[in-house]
C-alpha cells in the first residue's frame, strides 16, 4: 500500500467526519440539554437539501449556494423549533417515547417529500468555483470537499463562540449543567430548549445543503447519515461540542481506514463493534459532562 493511497483515505476520513459533524451537532446539543433524541433529524437534513434545490431554482449563479445555505438554515431551524414546541417539549420526561414520536414525524416528512418532489432524486449542481481540485503531490483534493471541511470548521467555531461569549450561550451552559437550579435562578429553560433545538436543526439544514452538493436529493437522503450521526452522539458523550467533534473524527477515520482492508458493509459492522468496545472502557463517551445527580442517564 503506498503512502498516497493512505493519505487519500485519511483525507476521506476527515471529509466524511465533517459531514458527520454537521449531521450530529444538532442531535448532540439537544440530547445534552434535554436527553431526547430526535429521530426526525435525518429528515431535517433532507428538508435542508430540498430547500437548497428550490433556492438554486430561483437564485441561479455562483452565489446561489450561499443564499441556499441561509435559506436552509432558517427554514430547517424554523421546522425544528416548530417540532420542539408542538411535540418534543410535551415528552421530555419520557426520552424513549420522544424517540418513537419523532420517528413518526420522520415517516410523515419522508412521505410528504415523496409526494411533493417524487421518489426519484432531484439534483443540485455545484457552482463552478467549487469544481476542480488542488493537487498535493500525487494527490488530488476536490475543492468541494475542502469547502465542506472549511464550512464544518466555521460552524464549529461559530457555535463554540456563541456558547462561550454570548448571554444565550451562558444560559445554555447553565441549563446543560443543572436544569433544576438554572430554572430556580430564573432561567426560562423552555425557551433555551426551543432555541437549542431550532439552532441544531438549522445546522442540520446547512448539512443538508452540503449533501445536495454531493449527490442527488431523495426523500431518504438524510437516512444514509443519521444512524452514524447517532453513533457519533453516543461516542461523543453527553452533548459536548468537543466530544461530538472528536467522535465524528474517530468514526470518520475509522470507517475510511478500515475500508482499506474490508468492504463498506464490513466497515460499518467494524465501526459498530469499535463503538461498543470503546464504551466498555469509557461508558460515558469521549467527553463526559460531570454530574452529581444519582439517577442521571
Amino acid at each position, binding site marked *: 500500500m503506498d503512502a498516497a493511497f493512505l493519505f487519500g483515505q485519511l483525507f476521506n476520513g476527515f471529509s466524511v467526519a465533517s459531514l458527520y459533524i454537521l449531521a450530529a451537532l444538532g442531535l448532540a446539543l439537544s440530547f445534552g440539554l434535554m436527553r431526547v433524541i430526535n429521530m426526525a433529524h435525518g429528515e431535517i437534513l433532507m428538508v435542508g437539501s430540498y430547500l437548497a434545490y428550490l433556492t438554486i431554482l430561483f437564485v441561479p449563479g455562483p452565489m446561489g449556494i450561499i443564499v441556499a445555505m441561509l435559506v436552509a438554515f432558517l427554514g430547517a431551524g424554523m421546522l425544528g423549533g416548530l417540532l420542539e414546541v408542538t411535540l418534543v417539549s410535551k415528552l421530555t420526561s419520557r426520552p424513549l417515547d420522544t424517540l418513537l414520536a419523532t420517528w413518526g414525524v420522520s415517516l410523515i416528512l419522508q412521505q410528504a417529500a415523496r409526494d411533493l418532489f417524487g421518489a426519484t432524486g432531484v439534483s443540485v449542481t455545484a457552482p463552478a468555483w467549487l469544481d476542480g481540485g488542488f493537487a498535493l503531490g500525487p494527490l488530488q483534493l476536490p475543492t468541494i470537499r475542502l469547502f465542506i471541511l472549511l464550512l464544518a470548521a466555521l460552524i464549529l467555531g461559530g457555535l463554540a463562540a456563541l456558547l462561550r461569549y454570548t448571554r444565550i450561550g451562558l444560559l445554555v451552559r447553565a441549563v446543560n449543567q443543572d436544569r433544576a437550579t438554572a430554572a430556580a435562578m430564573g432561567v426560562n429553560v423552555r425557551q433555551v430548549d426551543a432555541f437549542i433545538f431550532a439552532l441544531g436543526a438549522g445546522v442540520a439544514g446547512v448539512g443538508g445543503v452540503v449533501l445536495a452538493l454531493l449527490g442527488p436529493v431523495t426523500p431518504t437522503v438524510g437516512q444514509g447519515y443519521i444512524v452514524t450521526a447517532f453513533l457519533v452522539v453516543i461516542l461523543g458523550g453527553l452533548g459536548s461540542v468537543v466530544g461530538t467533534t472528536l467522535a465524528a473524527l474517530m468514526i470518520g477515520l475509522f470507517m475510511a481506514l478500515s475500508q482499506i482492508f474490508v468492504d463498506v458493509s464490513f466497515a*460499518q459492522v467494524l465501526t459498530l463493534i469499535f463503538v461498543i468496545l470503546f464504551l466498555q472502557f469509557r461508558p460515558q463517551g469521549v467527553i463526559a459532562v460531570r454530574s452529581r445527580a444519582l439517577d442521571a442517564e
Partner: protein
Amino acid sequence: MTGTLPIKQAATGVALILAIAAPWLLSAYDLNLLARFLALSLTAMGLVLIWGEGGILSLGQGVFFGLGGYALAMHLKLAGLAEGELPDFMIWSGTEALPWWWSLVKSPFAAVAAVLVVPTALGALMAWAIFRRRIGGVYFALITQALALAFATLLVSQQGLTGGFNGLTDYQTLFGFNLNLPSTTLALYFITLALVVAGLLGLRWLLASRYGKLLRASRDGANRMRFLGYDPTPYKVIAFAVAALLTGMSGALFTLHAGVVSPALVGVVPSIEMVIWAAIGGRNSLIGAIAGALLVNFAKDKISTAMPEVWLYGLGALFIAAVTILPQGLAGLFGPDHPFRPGKAGDLFARWRRERAKTASQPIAGEAAP
C-alpha cells in the same frame, strides 16, 4: 395477573376459540396472513418483556428476527437439494463451495436448534457487554438501531452467501413434509398458535414471578436496587435474551408462512415497526401486544395494497398517537393490567383530565383546584 376482570377473561377465551376455528372461517389467503401475523406477535410479546417491563427499548429486534428466519431458510434451501448441489443464487453469483456455516444447518434438527440458540446467544452477549457498563436508555436504543443497519447491509452486500437483496425464497420441504400441501399449512398454523399461547403463558408466569418483580425494579430504580444489594445487570440480560429467543422463533415461523426471508424484513425500518406493534397494543400487556401485532399488520396489509402512499402517513401518525394520546396502548383503554401511572408530563389525556377538573371546580368559590 391481579384483578383481571371476568369480561377480559371471557374475551380472551372467545379470541382463543376464534383462533382455533379460524382455518374453517377464513379463506386460505387470510388464514396465511393470520398465521404470519400471529408469528409476528411473538416479537411483540418479547418487546413487552424488555421494553414495557424492563424499560429497555431495542430498535434492533430485526436482527434476531432475521437470525431466526435465515437459520431456518438456509436449511429449507438445502433441504430441496441433492447431495453436493448448491442453492440456485450461489450458482448465479459464482460461489463455488458451500460455506461452512451453511452446512451446519443441513439437518432439520440442527436448524431448529440454531433458530433457538443463535439469537439467544447473540442477544445475551450484546446485552451483557452493554448493560455491564450501565449503558441504557436512549444509548441502548441507538446502538441496537446501528446493529440493525449493519446486519441488513451485510446481508445485502454478501450476495453470494446470503442471497443478497432478494433474500432466500422457494422452499419445498421441512422434516420431509411438503410445505405446499394444505395439510402442512394447517399444521403449521396450529403450531404457530400453540407457540403463541405457550409464549403468552410462559411470559405471564415469568412476569408474575420474583424475577418479574426484580426486572420492573431495575426499570424503575436501578440505583435503589443496587443499594438493596441486587445487581440489575443479570435481570436485564436475561430479559433481553428471552426476547431475542422469542423474536428468533417469530422470524423462523414468519419465514415459513411467508415463504421468504430478506433484508427488507430485518433492517432499521422494520425493526422500529416492531416496536409500534407493542406500543399500539400496550407496552405492559401481553394480550395487547398480540392484538397490536395483528391489528397493525392487518391494517398495513389492507391499506397499503389499496393506497400505498397513505400507509406511511398512517404509520407516522400511529407512532405519534401511541405516545402522546395512548401511552398505555389499546390495553390502557380496558382496565389496568397494571396500575395506571398517572400524570407524566406527556400524557395528553392526563393533562386534559387535570384541566377539566380545574374548570369543573371553578364555580365553587374559594376552593383551590387540585
